[in-house]
């Protein structure tokens, strides 16, 4: 039977993966709100951000510089993908767009395989330090980084979309395409920015958890899918909902793995997704 320290340990695992899912979910929602697309390739930005940072650090760059550069590279990559691959077929119908994002995910993953091979790569934690004992469980310092980064990202999102002209215009774009062009932003530019945001946040999530996970070219698939599960539960157009759902999902998953079964935790999580999709597809917070 699990004792209290285990309960606490599971909580920390849940917080870690939950933050990861929350960030990915938020990046999916931002892209969706502005360009009405769910990007299946989001998991690849997650991986590419992390592996880029690994490479840069291994080449001798100081961590903060590698951190910033990796975000930049991923953001630019996301913007390029939107401009070169999404924009040309944006009127092609939802089915084709879904398949295009799947194609992009394949291509990016294939490229990652060629660049970084099949091996797993480990990133050094952002700060050196011994694991912190808390209530009988151990807390890796990196987890604090993850939580901190998540909070900062959410804060930046709030600031940008609520307080800056550009951000407010982008939100208007999401609500009403005609209105947005009157507010000084073209739908094209808004979509580009949304993808940049999305890939940047996705990469951040990857970089933040990289010290705790073994990252390899295919490590982005599951986080992306779980991020989507969070979005489905939280509501496709609700940032707050996705964050809450992501944290909830991570926590539920951690406790399921720890207390019930680690073999079938994914089965349970995916079944939960199907149940939510069938019975309340707009999510717990979303509109109908």
């Amino acid at each position, binding site marked *: 039977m699990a004792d209290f320290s285990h309960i606490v340990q599971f909580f920390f695992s849940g917080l870690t993966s939950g933050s990861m899912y929350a960030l990915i979910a938020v990046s999916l929602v931002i892209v969706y709100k502005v360009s009405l697309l*769910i990007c299946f390739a989001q998991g690849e930005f997650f991986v590419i951000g992390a592996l880029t940072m690994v490479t840069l650090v291994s080449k001798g760059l100081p961590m903060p510089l590698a951190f910033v550069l990796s975000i930049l590279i991923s953001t630019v990559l996301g913007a390029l993908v939107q401009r070169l*691959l999404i924009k*040309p*077929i944006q009127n*092609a119908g*939802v*089915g*084709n767009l*879904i*398949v*295009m994002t*799947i*194609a*992009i*995910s*394949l*291509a*990016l*993953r*294939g*490229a990652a*395989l*060629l660049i970084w091979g099949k091996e797993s790569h480990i990133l050094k934690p952002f700060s050196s330090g011994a694991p912190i004992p808390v209530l009988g469980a151990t807390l890796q310092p990196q987890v604090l980084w993850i939580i901190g980064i998540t909070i900062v990202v959410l804060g930046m999102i709030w600031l940008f979309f609520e307080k800056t002209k550009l951000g407010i215009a982008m939100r208007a774009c999401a609500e009403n395409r005609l209105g947005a062009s009157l507010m000084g932003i073209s739908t094209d530019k808004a979509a580009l920015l949304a993808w940049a945001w999305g890939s940047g946040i996705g990469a951040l999530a990857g970089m933040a958890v990289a010290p705790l996970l073994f990252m390899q070219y295919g490590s982005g*698939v599951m986080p992306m*899918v779980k991020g*989507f*599960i969070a979005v*489905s539960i939280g509501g*496709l157009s609700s940032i707050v909902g996705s964050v809450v759902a992501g944290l909830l999902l991570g926590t539920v998953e951690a406790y399921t793995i720890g207390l019930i079964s680690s*073999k*079938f935790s*994914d*089965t349970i999580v*995916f*079944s939960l*997704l*199907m149940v939510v*999709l*069938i019975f309340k*597809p707009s999510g717990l917070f979303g509109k109908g």
Partner: protein
Amino acid sequence: MKLLKQFWWIFPLAFIALYPVTLAGGSPYWSGLLIFVGIYVILAVGLDLLMGYTGQISVGHAAYFAIGAYTSGILTAKYGFSPLGAMVIGMVLTGVVAWALGRPVLALKEYYLAMATLAFNEIVVTLIIGLEWLTGGASGLRDIPSFSIFGLVLSNHVHYYYFVWAIVVIVIACSLAVVRSPFGRTLVAIHSDEIAARAFGVDTAKYKTRIFVLASVFASMAGSLFTHYMGFLAPDDFGVLTSINVLVMLFLGGIGTIYGPILGAFFMKLLPELTYQIHDYELLLSGLILIVVLVFMPRGLFGIFTTIWEKMFSKADK
């Protein structure tokens, strides 16, 4: 020229019939390759009925491939069932599952439908890995016997080749019959505009479910054929990546044409042969191919063929 237009299908059929004794020269490697192609043709054609004609996106078609494959594998290797019987049981089981899932899942739209199909694929794979005592788990299921029909064992690869392709031809013929009939027209109507279709009396949920069951049963058959050829099964072959590979074949060949997916399956399975050790490039290549198709040739290879074909015939008519 008119004769050519009407009976063009004799050529591919002759090719299939003569291939093992001519080009393949009796080599098990080359017959094996075309056996794989045949299995994927069944998968792709089934998916085309569902996605190309009825417009229901599925990113988890491999789930039904898996159910058929593992049912056949488990029943024959562990319980001594006859392969034919096991295959039929697999088809029935898959059909029931698809029928039960059909109504709630197919009521979903676009992204939600895509995610639901993906989720079910993952559920099936995680169950295969988790239920080790039944499926052999991640290490796989072994010692699966060759296919046999009422005692006649098809262990010879050429015999099995003909058996597989006989089924492939039947699947293609059935699919063509469906899409060229009023049923097919109804599917296209549902794809184009579901609300309008309903306004003319179409019970769209019923039609979507039925074609879904058909596509899934085809996939199950393909799974059984796969099982008895391989002799062993591993869960890796049945994940979302496989589903996506079938999707790539579908789009590359030309979605919504039945013939397109056949071309797509040939191309995608034979491509690695032409490019030798480019195994590591496969992932990138599939993605790039799909991107190119979506941007530059949405009608796929078959679309290009028909354009050339029509140009040829309009020149001949002059």
